[in-house]
């Protein structure tokens, strides 16, 4: 009996997978052969230790991700301001009900006011512009590259492209994050920087946050073991250098800028303002810090000013993933995070070479 065959037998024996006769034979052998008996026991010890290890590993990972998500939620803190949190939490529990009622009233009032404002005030939303490429824009590029696209595209015949944008992998298994507004049609295909196209399904959409998750379903897609970037949850400081990769054209395009304000359009706290030239098609693209870690996702720009662009904070991405997990068991359980500072100290050209493989162009169609 080869050792491998032995191990296989042990496993089947302990997992109760043996047929009755086989089991009886195995037990007889054990009985007559002290050496085999000892090996069986030893293997059992090993398998128990491995199971114990698996249990603890899973729990440890679970604890780490709980810690991280509670930090983001603000339920626990790691800075001095919130040291007296214990007290505040107690007070909060005591007055939760009262505050709930107050919040309801406040919410209702806001609702009525903003409702009436919308009726009275002229729509000023044209001041900002979503950075997805609309049909005209795309048509132009399509006309030029028509023959090329037609040859390779995986879009169903007769499909009309409704909008396009960028997306990036957040999980090596083929999950991409993009803006909800990029996905105007009913389906979408994505292509990597080499132009290879993949079919996707829309896995999750959060219109309020303007975020969505696409899952590549194409058999051609090779899962990635490890992404070269981390999704950073912490705050980014004003003046921090940032850059983006995206698809305002059919080729991947690099732009750089800096964080210019900690809130977005009209003081929106879920976004930040960056001084960076972005064009339609950049929507859904990752916003990297100088080390190549993701700190946000590009979404809109101000129409009246050049270079005023807004990015959704990465915390919102974490929140969305959490909401998704809470409602759907098929959701990805952990954002696969690479080792810290993977691209630290690497010059920009090389960073881009490493990163461009993970940024995709999205073409939504009907």
């Amino acid at each position, binding site marked *: 009996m080869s050792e491998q065959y032995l*191990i296989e037998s042990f496993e089947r024996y302990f997992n109760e997978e043996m047929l009755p006769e086989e089991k009886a034979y195995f037990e007889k052998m054990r009985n007559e052969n002290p050496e085999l008996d000892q090996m069986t026991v030893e293997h059992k010890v090993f398998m128990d230790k491995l199971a114990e290890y698996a249990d603890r*590993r899973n729990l440890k990972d679970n604890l780490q991700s709980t810690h991280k998500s509670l930090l983001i939620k603000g339920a626990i803190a790691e800075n001095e301001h919130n040291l007296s949190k*214990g007290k505040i939490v107690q007070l909060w529990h005591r007055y939760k009900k009262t505050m709930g009622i107050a919040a309801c009233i406040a919410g209702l009032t806001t609702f009525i006011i903003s409702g009436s404002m919308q009726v009275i005030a002229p729509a000023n939303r044209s001041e900002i512009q979503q950075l997805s490429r609309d049909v005209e824009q795309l048509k132009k590029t399509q006309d030029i590259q028509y023959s090329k696209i037609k040859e390779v595209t995986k879009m169903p015949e007769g499909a009309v492209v409704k909008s396009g944008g960028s997306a990036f992998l957040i999980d090596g298994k083929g999950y991409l994050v993009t803006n909800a507004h990029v996905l105007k049609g009913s389906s979408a295909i994505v292509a990597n920087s080499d132009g290879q196209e993949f079919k996707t399904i829309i896995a999750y959409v959060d219109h309020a946050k303007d975020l969505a998750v696409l899952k590549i379903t194409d058999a051609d897609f090779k899962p990635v073991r490890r992404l070269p970037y981390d999704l950073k949850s912490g705050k980014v400081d004003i003046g921090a250098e940032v850059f983006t990769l995206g698809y305002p054209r059919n080729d991947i395009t690099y732009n750089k800028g800096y964080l210019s304000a900690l809130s977005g359009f009209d003081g929106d706290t879920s976004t930040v303002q960056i001084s960076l030239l972005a064009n339609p098609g950049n929507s859904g693209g990752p916003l990297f810090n100088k080390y190549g870690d993701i700190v946000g996702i590009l979404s809109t720009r101000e129409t009246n000013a050049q270079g005023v662009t807004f990015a959704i904070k990465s915390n919102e991405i974490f929140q969305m993933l959490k909401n998704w997990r809470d409602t759907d068991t098929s959701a990805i359980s952990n954002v696969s995070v690479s080792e810290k500072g993977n691209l630290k100290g690497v010059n920009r050209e090389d960073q881009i070479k490493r990163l461009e493989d993970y940024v995709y162009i999205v073409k939504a169609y009907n």
Partner: protein
Amino acid sequence: MNPDKKEHILLQGLANNDSKAIEIIYENNFSTIQALILNNNGSYDDARDVFQEAIMILYEKSKSESFELSSQIKTFLYAVCKKIWLKKLQARGKHATYLDPSLIENTVIQESDLDTARQLDVDFNIMEAALEKIGEPCKSLLKAYYIRKKGMGEIAEMFGYTNPDNAKNQKYKCLMRLKKLFFAQYNKMNEDE
């Protein structure tokens, strides 16, 4: 729901590695422990480590059927954290003079609970070191099968094996190597004692 019942459900959730239960236990207790550690010469990292260590101990207890928590989860965790932290401080050679007197007060936790936890930690580290040593793709393959409980078909696809049988073959080879590495270290540790 009466408080005892709630605590019971939380413990059961913990025993099953249920994320929701873990989050509730974490959220309800972490800040208190953090304050305890920070006020007694500890850092944020210390607080996280000590707290998570205490949860591991609670986890082991919650898994054994005979276990009945005689005190509330909160009291238990607080007592365990106190004990762990005091030991860590002593190991670091810090003077107890700056410490909050309540830290030194006797706790209801038995020394044997901490000893079991320490033994489990030792075994855990031996297994972890062995897994690190076998290299890729063995490490990822075994982790996918034994820790993330993926099926052989899925694993074959993930790693690019042409069929599940080949993946299974590879798994046994890896397991054999892991077993050898594990026992080399494990037996050495147990002989020393």
